[in-house]
């Protein structure tokens, strides 16, 4: 299917070599607390290549904190987080990005004063090289690199169908489009793991459908593994391969959507009785 450009597919091909690790990401009994608040209290799970893994749980359960721990913005006091066999603990957050972990945020964290294109180009930061001096002089390699990466970003813009917003500062764009740009910025990083924090919160049905489609495409066409945090149960249960349920920092269930949905603990802590109508 020609949904995604050749260049993007090329990236996928570049990644498909022999693997020398067991799981893409492995979270091992992680504990994190803030001044007495236990945000994460012993969570373990793993994500494999190309998997769509969902994390759900009540508000304040520690889902976002888990993302932040994987990115090393928060430094868990105990446990280990292993990326392709190596621990990421102690790395600076920007290093996790270089490793190939990309992310979107619960409260949109785009750069509001920069245009859509520029926002996406910042995603390319880790995949580019030229320094400030080369950039200032705008000659040779730096120029070539800029133009080349602009091309890659344009592919993603195409993929997400946001051509018409290209030159707008993202701060001025509608909420739904911003969410899409944020996904685009994460994709621009050539990630192997994409962490999505409530990608459809606040979206109407139509936008949710679009986003669901993009998520599935990313997974299917680009074969990027995804961790999805979302309160929209219809979406999670529809598209996730496996689901982890957290409550008060603890992990209360892992399994396929069908298994998790039946789990009485999950129903009690999270879904409530009337799950069908919500």
């Amino acid at each position, binding site marked *: 299917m020609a949904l995604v450009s050749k260049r993007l597919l090329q990236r996928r091909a570049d990644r498909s070599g022999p693997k020398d690790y067991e799981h893409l990401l492995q979270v091992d009994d992680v504990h994190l607390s803030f001044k007495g608040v236990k945000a994460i209290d012993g969570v373990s799970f793993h994500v494999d290549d190309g998997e769509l893994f969902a994390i759900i749980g009540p*508000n304040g359960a520690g889902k976002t904190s888990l993302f932040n721990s994987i990115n090393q913005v928060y430094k868990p006091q105990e446990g280990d987080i292993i990326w392709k066999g190596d621990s990421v603990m102690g790395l600076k957050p920007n290093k996790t990005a270089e490793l190939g972990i990309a992310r979107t945020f619960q409260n949109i964290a785009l750069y509001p004063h920069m245009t859509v294109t520029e926002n996406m180009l910042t995603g390319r930061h880790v995949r580019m090289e030229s320094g400030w001096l080369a950039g200032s002089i705008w000659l040779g390699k730096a120029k070539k690199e800029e133009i080349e990466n602009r091309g890659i970003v344009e592919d993603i813009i195409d993929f997400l169908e946001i051509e018409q917003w290209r030159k707008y500062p993202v701060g001025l764009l509608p909420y739904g489009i911003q969410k899409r740009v944020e996904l685009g910025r994460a994709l621009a990083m050539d990630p192997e793991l994409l962490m999505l924090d409530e990608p459809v919160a*606040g979206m109407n049905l139509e*936008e949710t459908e679009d986003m669901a*489609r993009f998520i599935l495409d990313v997974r299917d066409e680009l074969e990027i593994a995804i961790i999805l945090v979302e309160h929209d149960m219809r979406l999670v249960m529809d598209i996730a391969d496996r689901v982890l349920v957290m409550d008060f920092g603890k992990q209360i269930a892992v399994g396929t959507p069908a298994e998790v949905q039946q789990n009485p603990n999950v129903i009690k802590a999270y879904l409530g009785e009337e799950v069908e109508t919500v």
Partner: protein
Amino acid sequence: MLAVENLEVVYNEVALVLRGISIEVSDGSIVALLGANGAGKTTTLRAITGLLDIHAGDVTKGDIHFDGVDITDELPSKRVRRGISQVMEGRRVFAEMTVDDNLKAGAYINTNSAKVKASYDRVMTMFPRLADRKTATAGYLSGGEQQMLAIGRALMQDPKLLILDEPSLGLAPLLVQEVRDVIVDINSQGVSVLLIEQNANMALSIAHHGYIMETGKMVMDGDPKKLLKDEDVKEFYLGVKASGEQKSFRDVKHYKRRKRWLS
């Protein structure tokens, strides 16, 4: 109680966002206001509560009556004193203040300390999660916790009319049900509610009357039960196929995209 008549709002003196809408919230009722993104729901709320000026918006036509008084041009603080409270879109907690101080700020107009105490207790029982985190800095609460705080803060004002702008955003399913119950509960205490929602199911399930707006115009209004049965509402707001079964996201086609590509 609240009567919005033929309201027109213009942003930046150029962008006409509301094109003559009318809403009525009668005493003691819950009214749901639904609509796609950018339809103008939040703008309607701003007009009612007087916060348009900060956004360079202007009411250019129509008026707003509350309890029979024309409040179209009143200061926001005056309106709050009249009993109109709101839960703003996007939580908007005072991030650098503690949970308690946020609630105290909400009770600003309320000088009767006994009443403040009563409201405070009510909020705490309603959201036990907040009671656990009383002294926490609001900015570090989780998204959902902040949403609870925002709702709690509005309740501190002991309102006659409570307007909620997407209160279920970012809340876990169980909590959405709880919020729904809270709304019903508050309403049963005599507070009228205007509920702005994306979550049509939840809103219509408790409303006494529903409005649906589209690009600045009211396109439909009526009994929620009827609205729930309407084909368009089903298709666009509830995600139910004509056949009656839920659509699956896995089935969503690329057709829109194809269509664009062909043209």
